[in-house]
């Protein structure tokens, strides 16, 4: 059991709304930790449209997803939030009034006076290929991520995909695996040209195999793969004996563990009140795309507004004996000190 991390607020999701919540909380002297399943901040903005323009951020006529993320990180810098990236919140339970215990899939334990679920469309998880009968092998001999390379030593591996993940793991695992076969739907790879060249050289030297087509059949039992069939674009079937398969088809958003936290959901969204964007559980808030209320719009600007109102309510949980005086950053020297500009 690791040491419990105590914080005022735990924010689940480091997308634009989770990031801006740090700012609004910080102005009220409330400290935050953030957990995100991605290995970077920015959520959908960074994962789905880093280079695509956004036109509806107030007073910002044009900004890219990555630009917005970078600007928010600069804006919240004075409040020094702690990020826990590449981790998924697994469990959330209320243990006090209000006090929450939150655990992650990496074994971290948090205790927070309030929790803000800013999980957007859910958690980004690997896409699962629609190969019949794949489920029993998942986690045993079908892996969507490599946690320990040693687990693949002397194994016959089937790596599926044409992007950087597929190529990087092909190159990293080829030296220790018994044999690597890379499967891709076309004989062109979108990964970094250097990786593609290295992979092609290994194939030319007979040190690994490449098959063009799609995996359509798995063989094995008790979760252990023994072989896979690959249907070529000409219809020909190739059978390869394998010990493990690693599919890399990118990420998709799934609601994930939010569904297990005892909240009553409406169409996979969390109903909240519109005064503080709090759920039916006091101290547990939902902001941004994950929440719903009459008139809800899934806009970043709506999420920003929700974060600001949430912070006001959180203040009363974190500082129950203090009175909150509303202040403006333009005129309050106390707020300006917090921002490091006074």
């Amino acid at each position, binding site marked *: 059991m690791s040491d419990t991390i105590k914080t005022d607020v735990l924010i689940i999701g480091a997308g634009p709304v989770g990031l801006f919540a740090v700012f609004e909380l910080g102005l009220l002297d409330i400290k935050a930790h953030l957990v995100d399943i991605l290995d970077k901040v920015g959520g959908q903005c960074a994962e789905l*449209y880093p280079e695509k323009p956004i036109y509806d951020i107030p007073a910002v006529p044009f900004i890219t997803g990555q630009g917005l993320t970078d600007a928010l990180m600069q804006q919240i810098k004075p409040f020094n939030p702690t990020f826990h990236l590449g981790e998924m919140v697994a469990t959330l339970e209320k243990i006090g009034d209000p006090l929450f215990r939150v655990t992650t899939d990496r074994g971290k334990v948090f205790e927070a006076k309030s929790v803000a679920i800013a999980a957007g469309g859910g958690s980004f998880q690997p896409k699962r290929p*629609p190969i019949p009968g794949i489920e029993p092998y998942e986690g045993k001999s079908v892996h969507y991520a490599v946690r320990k390379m040693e687990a693949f030593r002397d194994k016959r591996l089937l790596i599926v995909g044409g992007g950087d993940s597929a190529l990087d793991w092909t190159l990293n695992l080829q030296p220790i695996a018994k044999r690597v076969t890379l499967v891709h*739907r076309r004989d062109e790879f979108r990964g970094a040209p250097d990786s593609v060249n290295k992979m092609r050289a290994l194939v030319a030297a007979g040190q690994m195999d490449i098959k063009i087509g799609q995996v359509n059949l798995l063989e094995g039992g008790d979760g252990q793969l023994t072989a896979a069939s690959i249907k070529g674009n000409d219809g020909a079937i190739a059978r390869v004996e394998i010990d493990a398969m690693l599919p890399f088809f990118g990420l998709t958003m799934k609601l994930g563990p939010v569904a297990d936290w005892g909240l009553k959901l409406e169409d996979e969204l969390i109903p909240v009140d519109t005064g503080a964007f709090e759920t039916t559980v006091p101290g547990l808030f939902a902001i941004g795309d994950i929440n719903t209320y009459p008139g809800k719009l899934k806009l970043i600007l709506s999420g920003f507004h929700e974060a600001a109102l949430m912070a006001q309510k959180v203040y009363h949980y974190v500082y129950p004996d203090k009175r909150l005086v509303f202040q403006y950053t333009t005129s309050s020297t106390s707020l300006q000190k917090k921002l490091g500009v006074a």
Partner: protein
Amino acid sequence: MAKITFIEHDGTKHTVDGEIGSTVMETALRNQIGGIVAECGGACTCATCLVHVDEAWSPIVGKPSAEEEDMLDFAFEVKPTSRLSCQIKVTEALDGLIVNTPAYQGR
């Protein structure tokens, strides 16, 4: 307007009006066509709006761009006529277009 027919994997047909200048993906969402997820909202970054264009229409719709072809690597059961519907602009020339939506978009 251009008539667009979506055929779901179970054979259910929907013929709807597509606004000229919009995309086939937007037309699907506006008409609540099953099988189109469009997670990224049309940024060509998620490959969850895959359609298989009808064989006869495929030459008229045309081939994917290099960027779209790269994204097709993240889709499943890709065929020579497969396209991402967010990258197909509705034009007068596509009046009568027929596309098939897949059973599974990765989620």
